[in-house]
Protein backbone atom coordinates (compact mmCIF):
# COMPACT_ATOMS: atom_id res chain seq x y z
CA UNK A 1 0.00 0.00 0.00
CA UNK A 2 1.39 3.39 -0.89
CA UNK A 3 1.19 6.57 1.15
CA UNK A 4 -1.29 9.13 -0.13
CA UNK A 5 0.17 11.87 -2.30
CA UNK A 6 0.27 15.44 -1.01
CA UNK A 7 -2.93 16.43 -2.79
CA UNK A 8 -4.99 13.74 -1.06
CA UNK A 9 -3.65 14.30 2.45
CA UNK A 10 -5.62 16.20 5.09
CA UNK A 11 -4.65 19.83 5.37
CA UNK A 12 -2.38 21.24 8.05
CA UNK A 13 -2.79 24.84 6.91
CA UNK A 14 -5.69 26.25 4.96
CA UNK A 15 -5.61 29.90 3.93
CA UNK A 16 -8.64 31.42 2.23
CA UNK A 17 -8.89 34.90 0.68
CA UNK A 18 -6.45 36.31 3.22
CA UNK A 19 -6.01 40.06 2.98
CA UNK A 20 -4.08 42.69 4.87
CA UNK A 21 -3.44 46.36 4.20
CA UNK A 22 -1.19 48.77 6.03
CA UNK A 23 -2.60 52.20 5.29
CA UNK A 24 -2.87 52.42 1.54
CA UNK A 25 -0.46 49.53 0.95
CA UNK A 26 -2.13 46.22 0.13
CA UNK A 27 0.48 43.87 1.64
CA UNK A 28 -1.54 40.67 1.14
CA UNK A 29 -4.28 40.75 -1.44
CA UNK A 30 -6.74 37.91 -1.03
CA UNK A 31 -4.39 34.94 -1.14
CA UNK A 32 -5.49 31.33 -0.81
CA UNK A 33 -3.35 28.26 -0.47
CA UNK A 34 -3.23 25.08 1.52
CA UNK A 35 -0.47 22.98 2.98
CA UNK A 36 -1.16 19.22 3.23
CA UNK A 37 -0.06 17.52 6.42
CA UNK A 38 3.41 16.08 6.43
CA UNK A 39 4.62 18.16 3.49
CA UNK A 40 7.12 20.94 3.12
CA UNK A 41 5.80 24.00 1.31
CA UNK A 42 7.99 26.87 0.21
CA UNK A 43 6.72 30.41 0.42
CA UNK A 44 8.63 32.39 -2.18
CA UNK A 45 8.58 35.97 -3.29
CA UNK A 46 10.72 39.02 -3.64
CA UNK A 47 11.09 41.69 -0.99
CA UNK A 48 7.69 43.19 -0.25
CA UNK A 49 5.83 40.28 -1.82
CA UNK A 50 3.93 39.64 1.41
CA UNK A 51 5.77 36.63 2.87
CA UNK A 52 6.50 38.12 6.29
CA UNK A 53 2.99 39.53 6.61
CA UNK A 54 1.57 36.13 5.68
CA UNK A 55 3.75 34.36 8.25
CA UNK A 56 2.80 37.01 10.82
CA UNK A 57 -0.87 36.25 10.19
CA UNK A 58 -0.26 32.49 10.32
CA UNK A 59 1.30 32.96 13.78
CA UNK A 60 -1.52 35.28 14.89
CA UNK A 61 0.83 38.24 15.31
CA UNK A 62 -0.93 40.26 12.63
CA UNK A 63 -4.71 40.42 12.40
CA UNK A 64 -5.99 40.00 8.83
CA UNK A 65 -8.47 42.44 7.34
CA UNK A 66 -10.29 39.61 5.67
CA UNK A 67 -10.22 35.92 4.86
CA UNK A 68 -9.57 32.98 7.12
CA UNK A 69 -6.76 30.77 8.38
CA UNK A 70 -7.23 27.26 9.67
CA UNK A 71 -4.31 25.38 11.12
CA UNK A 72 -4.67 21.75 12.19
CA UNK A 73 -8.42 22.29 11.69
CA UNK A 74 -8.55 25.11 14.21
CA UNK A 75 -9.09 28.80 13.70
CA UNK A 76 -6.17 31.18 13.76
CA UNK A 77 -6.14 33.66 15.47
CA UNK A 78 -9.31 32.58 17.31
CA UNK A 79 -7.63 29.58 18.95
CA UNK A 80 -4.14 31.04 18.80
CA UNK A 81 -2.87 30.42 22.31
CA UNK A 82 -3.74 26.75 22.23
CA UNK A 83 -2.61 26.20 18.64
CA UNK A 84 0.81 27.68 19.32
CA UNK A 85 1.56 24.77 21.65
CA UNK A 86 1.52 22.56 18.57
CA UNK A 87 3.50 24.91 16.37
CA UNK A 88 6.90 26.52 16.44
CA UNK A 89 8.91 29.08 14.56
CA UNK A 90 12.49 29.85 13.66
CA UNK A 91 14.02 32.88 12.04
CA UNK A 92 17.51 34.36 12.02
CA UNK A 93 15.84 37.74 12.57
CA UNK A 94 14.72 36.75 16.06
CA UNK A 95 17.31 36.10 18.75
CA UNK A 96 17.27 34.21 21.98
CA UNK A 97 18.26 36.04 25.18
CA UNK A 98 21.97 36.75 24.82
CA UNK A 99 22.83 36.62 28.51
CA UNK A 100 21.32 33.20 29.05
CA UNK A 101 23.28 30.07 28.30
CA UNK A 102 22.04 27.71 25.61
CA UNK A 103 20.86 25.26 28.26
CA UNK A 104 19.04 28.00 30.19
CA UNK A 105 17.33 29.19 27.01
CA UNK A 106 16.18 25.68 26.14
CA UNK A 107 15.00 25.21 29.70
CA UNK A 108 12.93 28.41 29.62
CA UNK A 109 11.38 27.74 26.22
CA UNK A 110 10.75 24.10 27.09
CA UNK A 111 8.74 25.27 30.09
CA UNK A 112 6.86 27.83 28.01
CA UNK A 113 5.83 25.01 25.68
CA UNK A 114 5.22 22.73 28.70
CA UNK A 115 7.42 20.02 27.26
CA UNK A 116 7.10 16.75 29.15
CA UNK A 117 10.33 15.28 30.56
CA UNK A 118 12.14 18.43 29.56
CA UNK A 119 15.57 17.41 30.81
CA UNK A 120 15.58 14.33 28.58
CA UNK A 121 14.26 16.32 25.62
CA UNK A 122 17.01 18.92 26.00
CA UNK A 123 19.63 16.15 26.21
CA UNK A 124 18.18 14.63 23.05
CA UNK A 125 18.33 17.94 21.17
CA UNK A 126 21.83 18.71 22.44
CA UNK A 127 22.91 15.39 20.94
CA UNK A 128 20.90 15.78 17.71
CA UNK A 129 22.13 19.31 17.01
CA UNK A 130 25.63 18.72 18.34
CA UNK A 131 25.35 21.49 20.93
CA UNK A 132 27.38 19.88 23.70
CA UNK A 133 30.52 21.97 23.07
CA UNK A 134 28.69 25.22 23.81
CA UNK A 135 25.53 24.25 25.69
CA UNK A 136 26.74 26.10 28.79
CA UNK A 137 27.96 29.14 26.87
CA UNK A 138 25.88 32.33 26.68
CA UNK A 139 23.78 32.60 23.52
CA UNK A 140 25.25 36.02 22.73
CA UNK A 141 28.71 34.50 22.43
CA UNK A 142 27.82 32.02 19.70
CA UNK A 143 28.68 32.17 16.01
CA UNK A 144 25.90 32.58 13.43
CA UNK A 145 25.96 28.86 12.66
CA UNK A 146 25.83 27.89 16.33
CA UNK A 147 22.96 30.33 16.92
CA UNK A 148 21.00 28.77 14.08
CA UNK A 149 21.50 25.29 15.50
CA UNK A 150 20.30 26.48 18.90
CA UNK A 151 17.33 28.29 17.36
CA UNK A 152 16.37 25.13 15.48
CA UNK A 153 16.72 23.07 18.65
CA UNK A 154 14.39 25.56 20.35
CA UNK A 155 11.97 25.33 17.40
CA UNK A 156 11.80 21.54 17.75
CA UNK A 157 11.59 21.47 21.57
CA UNK A 158 7.84 20.83 21.58
CA UNK A 159 7.96 18.44 18.60
CA UNK A 160 5.79 20.83 16.58
CA UNK A 161 3.24 19.46 14.17
CA UNK A 162 3.52 22.66 12.15
CA UNK A 163 6.87 24.37 11.83
CA UNK A 164 7.27 27.82 10.27
CA UNK A 165 10.75 28.69 9.09
CA UNK A 166 11.71 32.15 7.90
CA UNK A 167 14.95 31.91 5.92
CA UNK A 168 16.43 29.31 8.27
CA UNK A 169 19.80 29.18 6.49
CA UNK A 170 20.28 32.89 5.79
CA UNK A 171 23.85 33.99 6.58
CA UNK A 172 25.07 30.42 7.06
CA UNK A 173 28.06 28.95 5.25
CA UNK A 174 27.18 26.22 2.69
CA UNK A 175 28.34 23.40 4.94
CA UNK A 176 26.28 24.51 7.93
CA UNK A 177 23.31 25.31 5.69
CA UNK A 178 23.47 21.82 4.22
CA UNK A 179 23.64 20.35 7.71
CA UNK A 180 20.57 22.35 8.77
CA UNK A 181 18.61 21.14 5.73
CA UNK A 182 19.55 17.59 6.61
CA UNK A 183 18.23 18.07 10.16
CA UNK A 184 14.96 19.41 8.84
CA UNK A 185 14.58 16.46 6.47
CA UNK A 186 15.28 14.07 9.32
CA UNK A 187 12.75 15.75 11.58
CA UNK A 188 10.05 15.73 8.94
CA UNK A 189 10.70 12.08 8.09
CA UNK A 190 10.67 11.06 11.75
CA UNK A 191 7.58 12.96 12.85
CA UNK A 192 5.50 13.63 9.76
CA UNK A 193 5.52 17.32 10.66
CA UNK A 194 4.32 19.98 8.26
CA UNK A 195 6.83 22.67 7.37
CA UNK A 196 6.19 26.05 5.79
CA UNK A 197 9.45 27.53 4.60
CA UNK A 198 10.01 31.12 3.51
CA UNK A 199 13.30 31.30 1.67
CA UNK A 200 15.25 33.16 -0.97
CA UNK A 201 17.54 30.18 -1.42
CA UNK A 202 16.20 28.37 -4.48
CA UNK A 203 18.43 25.26 -4.30
CA UNK A 204 17.22 24.88 -0.72
CA UNK A 205 13.60 25.12 -1.84
CA UNK A 206 14.18 22.59 -4.62
CA UNK A 207 15.74 20.18 -2.18
CA UNK A 208 13.27 20.49 0.70
CA UNK A 209 9.89 21.46 -0.71
CA UNK A 210 7.10 19.26 -2.05
CA UNK A 211 5.19 22.33 -3.12
CA UNK A 212 5.90 26.00 -3.71
CA UNK A 213 3.70 29.07 -3.38
CA UNK A 214 5.07 32.10 -5.21
CA UNK A 215 3.87 35.49 -4.01
CA UNK A 216 4.13 38.71 -5.95
CA UNK A 217 2.73 42.05 -4.84
CA UNK A 218 0.63 40.37 -2.20
CA UNK A 219 -0.94 37.80 -4.51
CA UNK A 220 -0.32 34.15 -5.25
CA UNK A 221 1.33 34.41 -8.63
CA UNK A 222 1.84 30.70 -9.13
CA UNK A 223 2.19 27.44 -7.26
CA UNK A 224 3.09 23.84 -7.76
CA UNK A 225 5.70 21.20 -7.12
CA UNK A 226 9.23 22.38 -7.98
CA UNK A 227 9.56 19.84 -10.82
CA UNK A 228 6.17 20.88 -12.16
CA UNK A 229 7.14 24.57 -12.11
CA UNK A 230 10.41 23.83 -13.92
CA UNK A 231 8.52 21.94 -16.59
CA UNK A 232 5.81 24.55 -17.01
CA UNK A 233 8.25 27.47 -17.19
CA UNK A 234 10.66 25.54 -19.39
CA UNK A 235 13.52 26.29 -17.00
CA UNK A 236 16.35 24.28 -15.47
CA UNK A 237 16.37 25.86 -12.03
CA UNK A 238 13.83 27.28 -9.63
CA UNK A 239 15.89 30.45 -9.50
CA UNK A 240 15.09 31.04 -13.19
CA UNK A 241 11.43 30.41 -12.50
CA UNK A 242 11.57 32.85 -9.61
CA UNK A 243 13.09 35.50 -11.86
CA UNK A 244 10.45 34.90 -14.52
CA UNK A 245 7.72 35.41 -11.95
CA UNK A 246 9.39 38.37 -10.25
CA UNK A 247 9.97 40.15 -13.57
CA UNK A 248 6.72 39.08 -15.15
CA UNK A 249 8.57 37.36 -18.01
CA UNK A 250 8.21 33.79 -19.22
CA UNK A 251 10.43 31.66 -21.40
CA UNK A 252 9.30 30.92 -24.92
CA UNK A 253 7.23 27.77 -24.99
CA UNK A 254 6.35 27.95 -21.31
CA UNK A 255 2.92 26.61 -20.41
CA UNK A 256 0.22 28.74 -18.87
CA UNK A 257 -0.21 28.47 -15.13
CA UNK A 258 -3.03 26.20 -13.94
CA UNK A 259 -5.93 27.73 -12.05
CA UNK A 260 -4.65 29.12 -8.74
CA UNK A 261 -7.35 27.58 -6.56
CA UNK A 262 -8.73 24.48 -8.23
CA UNK A 263 -11.31 23.90 -5.48
CA UNK A 264 -12.62 27.41 -5.76
CA UNK A 265 -13.23 26.98 -9.46
CA UNK A 266 -14.63 23.46 -9.29
Amino acid at each position, binding site marked *: MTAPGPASRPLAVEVRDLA*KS*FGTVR*AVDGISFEVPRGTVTGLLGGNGAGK*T*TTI*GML*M*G*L*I*LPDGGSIRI*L*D*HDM*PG*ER*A*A*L*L*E*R*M*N*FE*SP*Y*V*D*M*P*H*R*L*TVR*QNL*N*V*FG*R*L*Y*RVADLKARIAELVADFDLSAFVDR*KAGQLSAGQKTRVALA*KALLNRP*EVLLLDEPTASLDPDTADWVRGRLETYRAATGATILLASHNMPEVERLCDDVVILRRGRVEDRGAPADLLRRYGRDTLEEVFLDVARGTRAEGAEAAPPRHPEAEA
Partner: protein
Amino acid sequence: MSAPVTSTGFSFARVGAMVLRYWYLLSNSWPRAVELVYWPTVQMLTWGFVQLYVAQNSSFFANAAGLFVGGLLLWDVLLRSQQGFAFAFLEELWSRNLGNLLMSPLRPSEFIVSLTVISLIRLAIGMLPVTFLAIPLFGFNVWDLGLPLAVFFANLVICGWAIGLVIIGILLRQGMGAEALAWSLMFLLMPITCVYYPVATLPALLRPVAWALPTTYVFEGLRALLIHHTFRLDLMAIAFAMNAVWFAVAVGVFYRLLASARRAGSLLQQGE
Protein backbone atom coordinates in the same frame (compact mmCIF):
# COMPACT_ATOMS: atom_id res chain seq x y z
CA MET B 1 -10.18 14.10 12.08
CA SER B 2 -8.48 16.92 13.91
CA ALA B 3 -6.60 16.48 17.15
CA PRO B 4 -8.08 18.46 20.01
CA VAL B 5 -6.51 21.74 20.93
CA THR B 6 -4.55 20.83 24.03
CA SER B 7 -4.14 23.96 26.08
CA THR B 8 -6.63 25.40 28.49
CA GLY B 9 -6.44 28.77 30.09
CA PHE B 10 -3.90 30.38 32.32
CA SER B 11 -0.71 28.44 33.05
CA PHE B 12 1.35 29.07 36.18
CA ALA B 13 4.03 26.87 34.61
CA ARG B 14 4.52 29.44 31.86
CA VAL B 15 4.57 32.25 34.42
CA GLY B 16 7.27 30.26 36.24
CA ALA B 17 9.20 29.88 32.99
CA MET B 18 9.26 33.64 32.47
CA VAL B 19 10.27 34.29 36.08
CA LEU B 20 13.06 31.75 35.63
CA ARG B 21 14.13 33.53 32.43
CA TYR B 22 14.55 36.84 34.32
CA TRP B 23 16.17 35.15 37.27
CA TYR B 24 18.76 33.61 34.93
CA LEU B 25 19.33 37.07 33.47
CA LEU B 26 19.94 38.67 36.85
CA SER B 27 22.12 35.86 38.12
CA ASN B 28 24.19 35.81 34.91
CA SER B 29 24.76 39.55 34.81
CA TRP B 30 26.14 41.04 38.02
CA PRO B 31 26.11 44.63 36.67
CA ARG B 32 22.33 44.38 36.42
CA ALA B 33 22.07 43.26 40.03
CA VAL B 34 24.45 46.00 41.20
CA GLU B 35 22.47 48.62 39.25
CA LEU B 36 19.35 47.58 41.14
CA VAL B 37 20.96 48.56 44.46
CA TYR B 38 23.08 51.46 43.21
CA TRP B 39 20.50 54.17 42.51
CA PRO B 40 18.31 53.63 45.59
CA THR B 41 21.48 53.78 47.72
CA VAL B 42 22.73 56.99 46.11
CA GLN B 43 19.31 58.61 46.48
CA MET B 44 18.95 57.53 50.05
CA LEU B 45 22.39 58.86 51.02
CA THR B 46 21.71 62.23 49.35
CA TRP B 47 18.31 62.78 50.93
CA GLY B 48 19.37 61.26 54.22
CA PHE B 49 22.16 63.83 54.64
CA VAL B 50 19.81 66.64 53.57
CA GLN B 51 17.42 65.50 56.28
CA LEU B 52 20.19 65.39 58.89
CA TYR B 53 21.19 68.94 58.01
CA VAL B 54 17.62 70.26 58.02
CA ALA B 55 16.81 68.51 61.29
CA GLN B 56 19.78 70.21 62.96
CA ASN B 57 18.24 73.58 62.07
CA SER B 58 14.53 72.91 62.44
CA SER B 59 12.65 71.56 65.42
CA PHE B 60 9.81 70.46 63.11
CA PHE B 61 12.06 68.14 61.12
CA ALA B 62 13.87 67.07 64.26
CA ASN B 63 10.53 65.88 65.64
CA ALA B 64 9.47 64.23 62.39
CA ALA B 65 12.44 61.99 61.86
CA GLY B 66 12.42 60.04 58.61
CA LEU B 67 10.20 62.43 56.67
CA PHE B 68 12.64 62.70 53.79
CA VAL B 69 14.17 59.23 54.01
CA GLY B 70 10.75 57.62 54.47
CA GLY B 71 9.34 59.58 51.55
CA LEU B 72 12.31 58.65 49.46
CA LEU B 73 12.09 54.94 50.28
CA LEU B 74 8.40 54.85 49.40
CA TRP B 75 9.01 56.87 46.24
CA ASP B 76 11.62 54.33 45.25
CA VAL B 77 9.12 51.52 45.83
CA LEU B 78 6.80 53.26 43.37
CA LEU B 79 9.52 54.09 40.85
CA ARG B 80 11.26 50.72 41.00
CA SER B 81 8.05 48.74 40.76
CA GLN B 82 7.17 50.57 37.54
CA GLN B 83 10.68 50.36 36.15
CA GLY B 84 11.13 46.74 37.19
CA PHE B 85 7.95 45.91 35.34
CA ALA B 86 8.79 47.88 32.20
CA PHE B 87 12.51 47.06 32.12
CA ALA B 88 11.85 43.32 32.30
CA PHE B 89 9.78 43.79 29.16
CA LEU B 90 12.43 46.00 27.57
CA GLU B 91 14.95 43.20 28.07
CA GLU B 92 12.96 41.25 25.46
CA LEU B 93 13.20 44.11 22.99
CA TRP B 94 16.90 44.66 23.67
CA SER B 95 17.68 40.97 23.12
CA ARG B 96 15.32 40.68 20.08
CA ASN B 97 13.55 37.85 21.88
CA LEU B 98 10.05 39.30 21.83
CA GLY B 99 9.19 37.46 18.60
CA ASN B 100 10.02 34.13 20.19
CA LEU B 101 7.76 34.90 23.14
CA LEU B 102 4.88 36.27 21.09
CA MET B 103 4.97 33.18 18.89
CA SER B 104 5.06 30.87 21.89
CA PRO B 105 1.95 29.77 23.81
CA LEU B 106 2.66 32.45 26.43
CA ARG B 107 -0.52 34.44 26.96
CA PRO B 108 -0.53 38.19 27.61
CA SER B 109 -2.07 37.61 31.04
CA GLU B 110 0.74 35.17 31.92
CA PHE B 111 3.32 37.66 30.67
CA ILE B 112 1.78 40.38 32.86
CA VAL B 113 1.75 38.20 35.96
CA SER B 114 5.38 37.19 35.38
CA LEU B 115 6.34 40.86 35.08
CA THR B 116 4.70 41.62 38.42
CA VAL B 117 6.64 38.79 40.07
CA ILE B 118 9.89 39.97 38.53
CA SER B 119 9.13 43.51 39.60
CA LEU B 120 8.80 42.29 43.22
CA ILE B 121 12.06 40.36 42.99
CA ARG B 122 13.87 43.41 41.60
CA LEU B 123 12.33 45.54 44.35
CA ALA B 124 13.50 43.14 47.03
CA ILE B 125 17.05 43.09 45.65
CA GLY B 126 17.19 46.86 45.25
CA MET B 127 15.34 48.09 48.31
CA LEU B 128 16.02 45.68 51.17
CA PRO B 129 19.72 46.60 51.55
CA VAL B 130 18.84 50.30 51.43
CA THR B 131 16.21 50.05 54.15
CA PHE B 132 18.71 48.34 56.42
CA LEU B 133 21.41 50.88 55.57
CA ALA B 134 19.12 53.74 56.64
CA ILE B 135 18.97 52.41 60.21
CA PRO B 136 22.59 53.01 61.27
CA LEU B 137 23.19 55.99 58.99
CA PHE B 138 20.09 58.06 59.65
CA GLY B 139 18.40 56.36 62.57
CA PHE B 140 15.33 55.63 60.46
CA ASN B 141 13.90 52.13 60.50
CA VAL B 142 11.16 51.91 57.92
CA TRP B 143 10.22 48.48 59.26
CA ASP B 144 9.09 50.17 62.50
CA LEU B 145 6.10 51.43 60.52
CA GLY B 146 4.70 47.91 60.83
CA LEU B 147 1.39 47.08 59.16
CA PRO B 148 0.96 50.54 57.60
CA LEU B 149 4.18 49.90 55.68
CA ALA B 150 2.58 46.85 54.03
CA VAL B 151 -0.46 48.95 53.09
CA PHE B 152 1.72 51.74 51.70
CA PHE B 153 3.82 49.19 49.81
CA ALA B 154 0.83 47.42 48.27
CA ASN B 155 -0.69 50.65 47.05
CA LEU B 156 2.53 51.90 45.55
CA VAL B 157 3.43 48.70 43.68
CA ILE B 158 -0.08 48.34 42.25
CA CYS B 159 0.12 51.90 40.95
CA GLY B 160 3.66 51.26 39.61
CA TRP B 161 2.43 48.16 37.78
CA ALA B 162 -0.54 50.02 36.30
CA ILE B 163 1.74 52.68 34.86
CA GLY B 164 4.26 50.01 33.73
CA LEU B 165 1.48 48.13 31.96
CA VAL B 166 0.48 51.19 29.94
CA ILE B 167 4.14 51.79 29.06
CA ILE B 168 4.66 48.27 27.71
CA GLY B 169 1.42 48.61 25.75
CA ILE B 170 2.84 51.75 24.15
CA LEU B 171 6.15 49.93 23.52
CA LEU B 172 4.28 47.12 21.76
CA ARG B 173 2.45 49.62 19.60
CA GLN B 174 5.23 52.15 18.97
CA GLY B 175 8.38 50.04 19.32
CA MET B 176 11.65 51.15 20.85
CA GLY B 177 10.90 54.77 20.00
CA ALA B 178 8.85 54.82 23.21
CA GLU B 179 11.66 53.42 25.37
CA ALA B 180 12.29 56.77 27.06
CA LEU B 181 8.84 56.55 28.66
CA ALA B 182 9.97 53.58 30.72
CA TRP B 183 12.74 55.67 32.21
CA SER B 184 11.05 59.01 32.60
CA LEU B 185 7.27 58.85 32.80
CA MET B 186 7.16 58.32 36.55
CA PHE B 187 9.16 61.50 37.18
CA LEU B 188 6.23 63.47 35.82
CA LEU B 189 4.28 62.29 38.87
CA MET B 190 6.96 63.13 41.39
CA PRO B 191 6.20 66.84 41.93
CA ILE B 192 2.43 66.32 41.75
CA THR B 193 2.07 63.32 44.02
CA CYS B 194 3.71 65.23 46.89
CA VAL B 195 6.42 62.82 47.98
CA TYR B 196 8.21 65.25 50.29
CA TYR B 197 5.59 67.93 51.04
CA PRO B 198 1.86 68.05 51.76
CA VAL B 199 -0.73 68.61 49.04
CA ALA B 200 -1.52 71.98 50.62
CA THR B 201 1.86 73.16 49.36
CA LEU B 202 0.72 72.86 45.74
CA PRO B 203 -1.04 75.71 43.94
CA ALA B 204 -4.82 75.33 44.21
CA LEU B 205 -4.99 74.48 40.51
CA LEU B 206 -2.82 71.38 40.93
CA ARG B 207 -4.40 70.00 44.08
CA PRO B 208 -7.27 68.17 42.32
CA VAL B 209 -4.69 66.58 40.02
CA ALA B 210 -2.69 65.44 43.04
CA TRP B 211 -5.78 63.94 44.67
CA ALA B 212 -6.51 62.05 41.45
CA LEU B 213 -3.32 60.06 41.99
CA PRO B 214 -3.59 57.08 44.35
CA THR B 215 0.03 57.58 45.39
CA THR B 216 -0.71 61.02 46.86
CA TYR B 217 -2.83 59.34 49.55
CA VAL B 218 0.07 57.09 50.45
CA PHE B 219 2.54 59.93 50.90
CA GLU B 220 -0.02 61.95 52.88
CA GLY B 221 -0.59 58.84 54.96
CA LEU B 222 3.13 58.50 55.61
CA ARG B 223 3.35 62.09 56.80
CA ALA B 224 0.33 61.60 59.06
CA LEU B 225 2.03 58.58 60.56
CA LEU B 226 5.44 60.20 61.06
CA ILE B 227 4.24 63.64 62.18
CA HIS B 228 0.98 62.91 64.00
CA HIS B 229 1.58 59.21 64.71
CA THR B 230 -1.82 58.44 63.17
CA PHE B 231 -2.57 55.77 60.60
CA ARG B 232 -5.12 57.26 58.21
CA LEU B 233 -7.20 54.28 57.18
CA ASP B 234 -9.51 56.56 55.20
CA LEU B 235 -6.67 57.69 52.96
CA MET B 236 -5.57 54.11 52.35
CA ALA B 237 -9.09 52.98 51.51
CA ILE B 238 -9.33 55.72 48.88
CA ALA B 239 -5.89 54.76 47.55
CA PHE B 240 -6.91 51.10 47.19
CA ALA B 241 -10.15 52.03 45.47
CA MET B 242 -8.38 54.34 43.05
CA ASN B 243 -5.69 51.75 42.39
CA ALA B 244 -8.34 49.17 41.56
CA VAL B 245 -9.73 51.57 38.96
CA TRP B 246 -6.28 52.55 37.67
CA PHE B 247 -5.16 48.94 37.30
CA ALA B 248 -8.36 47.89 35.55
CA VAL B 249 -8.04 50.84 33.17
CA ALA B 250 -4.35 50.00 32.59
CA VAL B 251 -5.22 46.38 31.73
CA GLY B 252 -7.87 47.63 29.31
CA VAL B 253 -5.45 50.10 27.71
CA PHE B 254 -2.77 47.39 27.42
CA TYR B 255 -5.10 44.96 25.63
CA ARG B 256 -6.35 47.71 23.32
CA LEU B 257 -2.79 48.67 22.44
CA LEU B 258 -1.90 44.99 21.90
CA ALA B 259 -4.87 44.59 19.56
CA SER B 260 -3.91 47.79 17.78
CA ALA B 261 -0.32 46.50 17.40
CA ARG B 262 -1.70 43.27 15.90
CA ARG B 263 -3.77 45.23 13.42
CA ALA B 264 -0.89 47.53 12.52
CA GLY B 265 1.66 44.71 12.26
CA SER B 266 3.99 46.47 14.68
CA LEU B 267 4.69 43.31 16.70
CA LEU B 268 6.97 42.23 13.87
CA GLN B 269 8.69 45.61 13.71
CA GLN B 270 10.06 46.26 17.14
CA GLY B 271 12.96 48.47 16.09
CA GLU B 272 13.16 52.22 16.52
